[in-house]
């Protein structure tokens, strides 16, 4: 049976650029939540986020993170085009390029991988509100007299698939481009679909992952209007599974992977970081504004993922939870975990990294898969930053702030999206 293995990882996280930077920070139990710097939040209710530590994610910032190994990639041409079109006005474009390049490099990809499809989870367009001023007349947007040819292509908002277009140009990819737009479940679904393409024999290599940034005025403001973020503008604002939890923190970044058919990876001695063994998705079909409190659909996603991996539930040694730190998500997820694993849940370590890096929305599932790989790379389970007092409504074994050393062979990562889209994925230790 064909299986997909992860042979390359690239990460741009609120801790900075690079997978090693990300993993080191998680191992040290650091927290990346801090006051927003990329725009002036003086009048905004929400003033904190887990930002990638750069004010302007521009060309020089990208070029400052390139290595000699990137010299065979046409960064100069792609970045020139991106500047002309205005593409770099959307922060996630820069994150995607750097994460993609790292994954490509780490997997040792080159000409032989150019036919790979790209399966990527991307969040919403970035609204460029300042562009609307010249066309706002008498209280309404009116494009009638707007000049066209002199304006940059990226105007008013960036295209949803803009980062995918840049990646395709950077690597000269010839395969299909699939953009998953399933909100917070998208990152996990993208990796799952990439693995499915390999399992079903449609391709041997896929570039996949997710990127998002809602750290912009409408992103932060819109989420605040929904009441999703914690009202406390402090670095410990996101407290997954804790009695004091009161909301999420918005994060940003990207995580990209090269997935490869296992035997192909073995033959070319590519790094094998984890097996993508199973996945499942469901829909809560409950409410727009809340998850199903009984966790039944989330549980069904987990069960499907484990069954697909053809392992017993007791074989799962760690759960990377969605764990948003919101009042409603955490108890529903905890109930789903308990109902999935039964007595095994008494000793099954569960953690959420959102206390440290916030909620990366469409990229959340992807970066949490990258975090979970630490379990195989370093026999280390990331901790749950800001978790101090377990809520009795969340009766699971939550890994504390400092993380835990443990050897596990199978793990599960959950991603549950706004609107009720649930996704779970099972990763295995490479043999």
């Amino acid at each position: 049976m064909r299986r997909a293995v992860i042979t390359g990882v690239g990460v741009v996280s609120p801790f900075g650029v690079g997978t090693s930077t990300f993993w080191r920070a998680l191992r040290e139990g650091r927290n990346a939540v801090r006051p927003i710097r990329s725009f002036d939040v003086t009048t905004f209710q929400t003033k904190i986020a887990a930002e990638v530590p750069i004010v302007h994610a521009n060309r020089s910032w990208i070029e400052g993170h390139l290595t000699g190994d990137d010299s065979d990639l046409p960064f100069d041409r792609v970045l020139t085009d991106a500047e002309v079109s205005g593409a770099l006005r959307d922060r996630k474009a820069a994150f995607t390029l750097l994460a993609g390049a790292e994954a490509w490099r780490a997997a040792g990809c080159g000409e032989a991988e150019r036919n790979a499809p790209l399966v990527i989870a991307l969040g919403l367009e970035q609204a460029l509100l300042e562009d609307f001023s010249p066309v706002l007349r008498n209280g309404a947007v009116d494009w009638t007299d707007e000049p066209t040819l002199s304006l940059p292509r990226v105007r008013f908002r960036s295209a949803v698939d803009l980062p995918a277009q840049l990646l395709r140009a950077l690597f000269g990819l010839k395969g299909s481009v699939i953009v998953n737009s399933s909100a917070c479940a998208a990152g996990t679904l993208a990796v799952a679909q990439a693995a499915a393409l390999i399992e079903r024999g449609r391709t041997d290599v896929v570039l996949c992952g997710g990127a998002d940034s809602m750290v912009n005025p409408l992103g932060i403001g819109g989420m605040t209007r929904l009441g999703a973020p914690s009202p406390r503008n402090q670095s410990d604002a996101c407290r997954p599974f804790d009695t004091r939890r009161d909301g999420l923190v918005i994060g940003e970044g990207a995580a990209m992977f090269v997935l490869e058919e296992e035997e192909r990876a073995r033959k070319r001695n590519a790094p094998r970081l984890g097996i993508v063994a199973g996945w499942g998705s469901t829909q809560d079909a409950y409410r727009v504004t809340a998850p199903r409190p009984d966790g039944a659909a989330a549980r069904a996603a987990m069960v499907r993922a484990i069954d697909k991996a053809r392992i017993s539930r007791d074989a799962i040694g760690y759960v990377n939870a969605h764990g948003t730190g919101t009042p409603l998500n955490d108890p529903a997820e905890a109930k789903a975990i308990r109902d999935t694993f039964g007595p095994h849940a008494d000793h099954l370590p569960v953690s959420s990294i959102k206390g440290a890096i916030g909620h990366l929305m469409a990229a959340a599932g992807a970066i949490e898969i990258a975090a979970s790989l630490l379990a195989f790379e370093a026999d280390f389970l990331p901790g749950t930053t800001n978790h101090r007092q377990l809520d009795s409504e969340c009766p699971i074994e939550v890994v504390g702030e400092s993380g835990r050393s443990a050897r596990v062979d199978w793990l599960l990562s959950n991603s549950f999206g706004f609107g009720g889209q649930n996704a779970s994925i099972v990763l295995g230790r490479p043999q």
Partner: protein
Amino acid sequence: MVGASAVTPRGVDWRGIVGALSAAKGSLLEVPQAALDSDPAPPRLYAMASPAARFAVLAMKLALDDAGWSTDREQIGLFLGVGASGGSMTELNNMLSESMEGGHFSLARFGKQGLAACNPLFAFQLMNNFTLCHGAILAGLGGPNGAFFSRGAGTFEALGAAIDSIETGECDRALAGGADSGRHPVTLAELQRERVLDPQSGASEGAALIALIAENEQPSVFVNAWAVAPDANDEELLGECMTEAQRDAIDFIVLAPWGGGARATLERWACTVAPHARILDISLTLGDSLAASPAMAWTVALDALASEGAHRALVLGAGNDGAIGVALFSRRVAS
């Protein structure tokens, strides 16, 4: 396939659509309000849903009714091609108006007065996955699912994901389709600025779905093959699907091209694969509704098979990014 739905500028009935489109002159671009009023959504939905989501809600209800799927809906899969965000312009105008200071956008005013001027649920209008979620919630669809951003060809990925989901046993029933509005003012402005609007068709809107079940359930129409290629001229990527298409005679071809360039490419493919087949270009009568167009084309193919005497129908769609999607349907047993 065991059912379908189409919410188009020409109404909400997919049966007889081949005849209606064949007789039509010129393209209609907007879904008539009367069509939406035929099955009103809950009032609360209108505060939270984009136009595309409202089309999708109606299309899901109609497709489920058409397939007779009234029970066990928590197991039904749902895979949808979706477009860009589509928030209310009234909300946007209110927000921007309150954010102006001295004729310029003021971030400081936006942070307080601008945000306060908009509906708290505005974000739900913007999130394009809600094009899928609103309908799933209202219809109780709890199976595997995915929303795929589509400029046209991406909707074929939704079809592929639905087929994979059935073939691998994740679910035994699924809806696949697309919903979008090219009529949203921001989208329309982008298309005009990029000069990709086709004067022969025009940007339109709508939603369409097909209801899929496993082959062993003996459906009346089969999906024999599907493929997506990022370049419409990439014969290698389309090769397998086209080989399958040429295995037996195709007597009906539905084209859903974005723009004149794509139309010429699709017509070339059509002539190569089945030079004697009847061809219907739906963009000339339904406009181009981006993520929704391919799904509308599938329902046209279904009607051709169900009521026009066609045996094998090919759908060729191309988005404004140059990608092409192909799907082959037949009334015979799938090979």
